[in-house]
């Protein structure tokens, strides 16, 4: 899906601007390429353009379409990338849905930077160059 020499590409979807910025900065620190979206609609556009995507980090509550709905659509259209779903509402129903999604993990807000980074590291392609 991606060439050996390119950087892994992580897509981050978060409607809160400050959160989005800090997530982007944090993940960029790992030496990967980061693209961000501020709504479900933006996220769909990002996922459907020609650039490859190696990991999706998405908030659940977002305008237009929830991150979970986007992730579900991506799965249904055959996109098998790992997904980290970030939420401030980690209830049982959502956990079950995320389990059902496959290769997806739920991360409850608020979280420590290391928690996110370790999840990201574990889900990036093993042979990619990470700083």
């Amino acid at each position: 899906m991606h060439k050996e020499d390119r950087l892994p590409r992580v897509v981050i979807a978060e409607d809160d601007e400050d959160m989005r910025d800090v997530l982007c900065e944090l993940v960029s620190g790992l030496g990967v390429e980061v693209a961000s979206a501020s709504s479900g609609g933006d996220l769909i556009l990002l996922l459907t353009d020609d650039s490859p995507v190696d990991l999706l980090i998405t908030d659940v509550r977002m305008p237009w379409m929830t991150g979970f709905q986007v992730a579900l659509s991506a799965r249904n259209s055959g996109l098998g990338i790992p997904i980290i779903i970030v939420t401030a509402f980690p209830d049982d129903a959502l956990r079950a849905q995320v389990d059902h999604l496959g290769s997806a993990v739920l991360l409850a807000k608020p979280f420590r930077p290391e928690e996110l980074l370790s999840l990201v590291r574990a889900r990036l392609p093993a042979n990619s160059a990470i700083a």
Partner: protein
Amino acid sequence: MRLARKLILSMVIGLTVVLAANSFYRVRRELAAFDEDMKQDHDVMAQVLESAVTSVWATQGRDAALRLIANTKSPSKMLHVRWVDGQGAHGESSSSGVLVTRVAIVVGGSPMGFVEISESRDFARAYVRHTVIRSFALTLIVVLCVGALSTVLGIWFVGKPIEKLVERAARIGAGDVEGQLVIRQRDEIGELAAEMNTMCLRLVETRQALTAETEERLRAQEQVRHADRLATVGKLASGIAHELGTPLGVALMRANMIASNPTLGRDTRDAARIIGEQIDRITHIVRQLLDFARGRATSPPGPLARRNPADLLAIAETAVAMLQPLAVKRHLVIDIVADPVLPKPPANPEQIEQVLVNLLVNALHASERPGKVTITLGSAEAKAPADLTPPVWSEGSEPKYAVISVTDEGVGISPEVLPRIFEPFFTTKHVGEGTGLGLSVAYGIVREHSGWIEVTSERNRGSCFSVYLPLDSVEIEWGTR
């Protein structure tokens, strides 16, 4: 008493009337008999005199006959015999006080006059008076005796028992239905007393049933109210926690980025590290709030079968190991007492461990002097509190629960505080010793497992927290320890 008096009075009057009537008729009968006697005596005497006087008159003349009459001795002072000249009816006449009998003397076909026998009835009168007085005295004595006897018996058999019944009825009316009425009589009064006792027993039973029912209802209401309050607080807490999630995350990550930026000065990085630590603390609290709020979710928890059987002994041992340093510091020993056959409730082991740790921390903090804290592991049949939707039991299995109890010998919980201990941020510890979330979190987790926590506590004697987790008999794997 009044009823007895009425009965006695009517009896006495009746008796008096009967005795008086009896005396009256007896006197009348005797008087008549007496009169009859007198008349017969007169008749006999008249015949004797008639023949004697007639014979003397015929042979010796008028004077001899009159002398005979004059010389006739009367048998009593009451009786008089005299000669009456002239003609008149032969026979008897009777005035009120005197009986008079006349007999005509006929000599040679011509009437000469009468011999008159008169007798006073004074003797009869005296007899009547005497009889009346005697009857009266007798009646009086009989009435007095009967009156006295019937008064005693009336009071004994009617007055006293009725008085008791009335007093008992008054007490029942006033609401006092306790105790038995003792009347050992085999009659209507005894039956009434027995019925009254039966009625009181029924009343007591009904009242007890009612009291129990009312208490049950009040307890259920209190449980529902308590759960409602916690639900409201839980909703509030989770709302706040959710809203804090994003800004806290941003602040935490920014602080960490500054702290780990080598190009910045040491002071700046230290300050950022401290900010990060403080946000970490807030984050921890917010997470606990979310744990608590999750247990308050209105949706029913998932089927128990989805959870794996938890090894309670292993969980308890882990929790004890974790808290051993704190226990040693406070000169306390933590004992584990486990049933030989230990059920394995379907549960999330990490969450149950968290519950046990929270309860243990409280128990250790509550123990102000050296002693021990006991963890008891077992199972029991129990009735879920009213506000809890009980789990769906597998067919044929009893509603049984695994029970994890933590008992301490500490300061105890005062009754005023007891209803509030599960509220988030409610704490009796000193500032900085606890957030007041430990029990809330335990409560939330246990509720999420369709279980509940029971608390008993005695001031200065200690407290016992018992966690009830539903067992599904189909799911239980029996341990060997």
